[in-house]
């Protein structure tokens, strides 16, 4: 059976409810919420042959690249010099989230806002460049900024510095599950130190309470070093057709395609959001995380992977029954053995074809720590507009999965409650339930 890493309790201490009030998106299918969402509803596919390095000597050559992004146009040169691409994309997403939330971080109390982002491998493109400089030219050629630019916590740090966010902060590393785990942890922070509870935890420096946490994740690892690390999992598609390489739940699925980008979300206490008259996308109503049993281990549940239990815990945390869920944004690994596990979990909870399921990420590739954060943004936008985006590249799901997969065209329906699922390599499962206000 899957071990609970952290099943949250509903509303938590002090009754703090966490809502999302700002979205900043940088994705292979668009930069900015509206560009991304329009492309996603249209079923656009941002996967193409790699251009950030020459992939011709590698068995997999496709990726979801963020195109038309010039860091020098979007960020001060002081920041460009000291950051990996993943951090540049994260800072851009953070700036978009600030604007979308309509906040002025500088006007917040000193410890009133924190940052919790997800990460996976860190700044590998920057790191590879500097290691190459070390080997080929000598230590004088290594950037002083290598000291932190590679670091997996650097997105949190740079967002904190840029926007003056000095409240409780951290980084979560659970591979592709991280985007949800980070948001779950952001909610935990908001509950521990609500902004109305002045001076409650002086030992942690929460002298003025916490009203918001910047969360989510943005990743980029499209360099040879990052690429070989991904290839080693054996889960990457070797298909050559960008429109067909990543086909979650398809009968002929043969792996996923990596991508870069993600989303930064402003997670705010409902009380703070209401006090400033903020637009609310939805509530982080439920969250849970589990771990798969170790391969080959013999446990009470017969070794069932932890995804079903994770989803059930998140629904229970939200106080939501399966019949109240309008849609599932699935992990959609595109690896048959993993698709089978997820389809079984969804079927066990909702029944055969019991709930609309979509995997918009087949149009972006899997963005590692950014992937689930972007899925969360898609879920919130589905609620806003009453429409589910399709799963690009998939005509129909394999029959045995018995899934009601949204394919080919967006599906209009009232969307009030969405379950978002994510899995990370190594047995991580995370689930979030978002609910309209």
């Amino acid at each position, binding site marked *: 059976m899957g071990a609970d890493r952290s099943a949250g309790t509903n509303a938590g201490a002090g009754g703090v409810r966490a809502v999302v009030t700002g979205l900043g998106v940088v994705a292979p299918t668009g930069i900015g919420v509206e560009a991304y969402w329009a492309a996603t509803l249209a079923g656009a596919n941002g996967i193409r042959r790699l251009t950030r390095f020459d992939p011709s000597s590698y068995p997999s050559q496709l990726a979801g690249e963020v195109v038309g992004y010039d860091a020098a146009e979007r960020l*001060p040169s002081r920041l460009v*010099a000291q950051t990996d691409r993943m951090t540049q994309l994260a800072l851009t997403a953070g700036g978009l989230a600030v604007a979308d939330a309509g906040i002025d971080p500088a006007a917040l109390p000193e410890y009133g806002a924190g940052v919790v982002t997800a990460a996976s491998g860190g700044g590998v493109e920057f790191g590879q460049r500097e290691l190459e400089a070390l080997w080929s030219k000598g230590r004088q050629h290594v950037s002083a*900024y290598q000291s932190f630019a590679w670091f997996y916590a650097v997105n949190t740090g740079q967002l904190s510095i840029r926007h003056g966010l000095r409240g409780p902060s951290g980084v979560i590393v659970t591979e592709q599950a991280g985007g949800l785990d980070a948001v779950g942890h952001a909610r935990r922070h908001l509950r521990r130190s609500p902004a109305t509870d002045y001076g409650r935890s002086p030992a942690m420096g929460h002298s003025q309470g916490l009203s918001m946490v910047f969360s989510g994740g943005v990743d980029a690892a499209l360099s040879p070093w990052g690429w070989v690390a991904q290839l080693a999992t054996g889960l990457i598609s070797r298909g050559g057709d960008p429109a067909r390489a990543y086909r979650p739940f398809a009968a002929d699925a043969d792996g996923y395609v990596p991508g870069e980008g993600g989303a930064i979300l402003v997670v705010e206490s409902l009380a703070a959001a209401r006090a400033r008259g903020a637009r609310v996308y939805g509530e982080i109503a439920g969250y849970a995380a589990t771990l798969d049993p170790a391969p080959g281990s013999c446990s009470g549940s017969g070794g069932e992977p932890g995804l079903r239990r994770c989803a059930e815990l998140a629904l229970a945390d939200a106080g939501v029954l399966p019949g109240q869920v309008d849609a599932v944004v699935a992990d959609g690994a595109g690896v048959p053995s993993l698709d089978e596990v997820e389809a079984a979990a969804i079927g066990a909870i909702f029944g055969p074809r019991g709930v609309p399921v979509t995997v918009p990420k087949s149009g972006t590739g899997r963005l590692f720590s950014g992937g689930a954060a972007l899925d969360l943004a898609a879920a919130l936008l589905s609620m806003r507009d009453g429409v589910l985006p399709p799963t690009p590249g998939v005509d129909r799901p394999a029959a045995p999965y018995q899934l009601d997969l949204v394919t080919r065209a967006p599906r209009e329906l009232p969307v009030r409650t969405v379950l978002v699922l994510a899995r990370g390599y190594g047995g991580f499962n995370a689930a979030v339930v978002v609910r309209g206000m």
Partner: protein
Amino acid sequence: MARLTLDTLVRIMRESAGEEEGVDLDGDILDTLFIDLGYDSLALLQTTGRIERDFGIELDDYVLAEAETPRALLELVNADLDELVA
């Protein structure tokens, strides 16, 4: 013989650590503190590292601590270059 000029220093600064928003490195910066130019110790380390590479010198650690302005840094580097020739 090789000398480090302000123009070259500014070019190296731009290339190695960038230009802070609201700061004009082409302005009258000779006696402005590096910290007021948006240059922290790491930015200065990156800059002096590039100077060492480009000019084939090795600056003592105290240079980083003592060179608080572009003028001070130019003097310390050029003193080093003079010694190299002598």
